[in-house]
């Protein structure tokens, strides 16, 4: 099992490409999307993604909208906001809407890795809890 399975969403293709390469090199599965719609479509087809790293400012469906949609449809997937905005407002909004954390562009790779790891850990923990709960439920039923 890889360290994490990350979906990178940003309209800046070179950024996504390089970032993907760097993350892969650090033993992380990366798939990428260049818009909110793409990202949602990809999430629809693949259930591997654990963490979405999402740029706030994108043409079309922007980061915040995409975040809302992801939280609605895939509540277990963690989202890390990536922002060129230094505005606390957008970060706060993202956090309110259930983002795991936010990072400023350009971001330090170590920092990003740290956040991704934390997010994955949380996600996996939550999944475990759910599985546990299910097991309990099933065992309770059987008992």
């Amino acid at each position, binding site marked *: 099992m890889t360290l994490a399975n990350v979906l990178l969403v940003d309209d800046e293709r070179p*950024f996504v490409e390089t970032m993907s*390469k760097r993350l892969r090199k650090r033993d992380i599965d990366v798939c990428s999307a260049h818009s909110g719609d793409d990202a949602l479509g990809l999430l629809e087809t693949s259930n591997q993604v654990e963490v979405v790293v999402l740029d706030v400012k994108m043409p079309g469906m922007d980061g915040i909208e995409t975040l809302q949609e992801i939280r609605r449809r895939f509540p277990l997937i963690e989202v890390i906001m990536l922002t060129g905005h230094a505005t*606390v407002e957008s970060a706060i909004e993202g956090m309110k809407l259930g983002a795991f954390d936010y990072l*400023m562009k350009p971001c330090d790779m170590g920092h990003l890795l740290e956040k991704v790891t934390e997010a994955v850990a949380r996600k996996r923990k939550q999944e475990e809890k759910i599985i546990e709960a299910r097991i309990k439920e099933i065992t309770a039923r059987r008992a």
Partner: protein
Amino acid sequence: MDTNMINTAFINTSPYYRALTRKMVLIVIVVSFTPMILVTGIILRHFSVSHHEKVYAHLGELVQKHKQNIDNFLQEKLNDIMFLADAFSYSQLSDESFLNRQLVALRRNFGTVFVDLGVVEDSGRQVAYAGPFKLEKANYADSQWFEQALKRRTYISDVFLGLRGMPHFIIAARNRFAEKPWILRATIDFVSFNNLVENVRIGETGFAYILNKAGRFQTKPLVEFSPQKGCYGHFFSCEEPAVKGIRITERQDESRRKSIYVTALLKNDDWLLVYKQVSADAFSDLRNTQHIAVVIFIVGGLAIIAMAFWMSKRMVERIARADKEKEMMNQQVIETGKLASLGELAAGISHEINNPVAIMVEEAGWIEDLLEEEDLKRSKNLDEFLRALKQINTQGKRCKEITLKLLSFARKTDSRAHLFQINALITDVVALSAQRAKFGKVEIETQLSPNLPEVEASVSEMQQVFLNLINNALDAMEKRGGRIKINSYPDNGNVHIQLADDGPGIPRSNLSRIFDPFYTTKPVGKGTGLGLSICYGIIKKMGGEIHVKSVVDVGTTFTISLPTEGGRLKPAADAPVANPPENDTVKKGDAP
């Protein structure tokens, strides 16, 4: 006052304000003078007319009364004589003793008016005489009066000297005896007749006299002068309409003074009663009133003119002051607008730059990653590669910091306002800067008033403001070290914080620009030029003021004034002036 001097000088030099003053003076003068002139003129005119009427009426009445008096006097005497002539026969009257008795009786009844009596036969010889003069047997055949008297029933002569050599006139009544006319004549005392007109005296120059048709005096005039025929001739002709027999004209007299002539015809139009008075004398009341009016008019006019000048000057001064204030306000608005639009621009730039920088940093990171691989690790320039990549990374981070600052200039970081104690914040910021200050040999002193009211502001923004100011001061004093004093004190509901350093000061030429964005005097790469404009924007946004005083080689003092409640600065007597870039003579030399 200083501002007044400036204003006055300003008004005196600016053609716009001079024209304005002139216009106002003119309007005030015209508006004030027009009704004054109209009212004064109309009243004076009416007064003059009615006064003339009054004087004319008065004089007319006077003259008419005297005309009647004189006519009555003459008629009375004539009647007396006629009575004598009719009542007694020629033979009776020819008797001198009888005649004497009659004279005595007349004088007893009528006073000394009758001087003498005489009976003259048609040959002109005086048959009988009673009186003080020795005129018995006098012959009047050649006398003018006798000729006239023979022709009519009664006759009153003009005044003449006659045989006795004294001015007198004669009243004669004709009668017939034995188909021959005879005449009873009486001499009237000139003095008593003269009194009738001599008593008419008004003012200094008003007097009356009587003229005959030849223009000779029939009375003794008060002032001796020779009446010219031409001057009075027209009074005898009846071309001009006379009111109740009285005619009033104004003309120049013998000595060329304008005079009033009031005339009435006497004695069957033979004589002319003239009352003459110099106009100036007759209308002296009017003249006095006019003089008073003129004096009041001049004094009032001068007062109005002085007032107009004074008031216009005051008004224009006020207008000029208001204009100046408006101009200052406009500049402030422009300044604020400039900062705002620059903020928008900065936000846009930082967004656009962040992405490429992020990519560049990522690419550098990728290269770094690749360098980890075995074959490249042995490259002899590996260290140089790594150094260059590190440099790219560092510069990328610098870019990020710049864009961050730009953004905070445009949209503040946590900009929500709380009520908090500014003293605590200052203490925190000073503690933060303490390490740096120690290296720069700078001493930071705080003198904080313990009972400050809380201010409503964003804590992070205020931290930024004080950090910026302290950092600027530290930068400025980097070479020599020095001392920073921070005071806080309340004043009239506002809170003031003063941050004074004894650094190199700000040259005058930089003064007006220190709050402008991107203005810096620091070496390239050391400062963004945004620090002070961010401070300015933050303080302005929360309704406060920031201003600066600086003297080269003495130091720089920033003063921040913050509102405590309601978000508005309360005006104070020594409140700092609003517009920092304009305000002071010399400002801080270190960069924003």
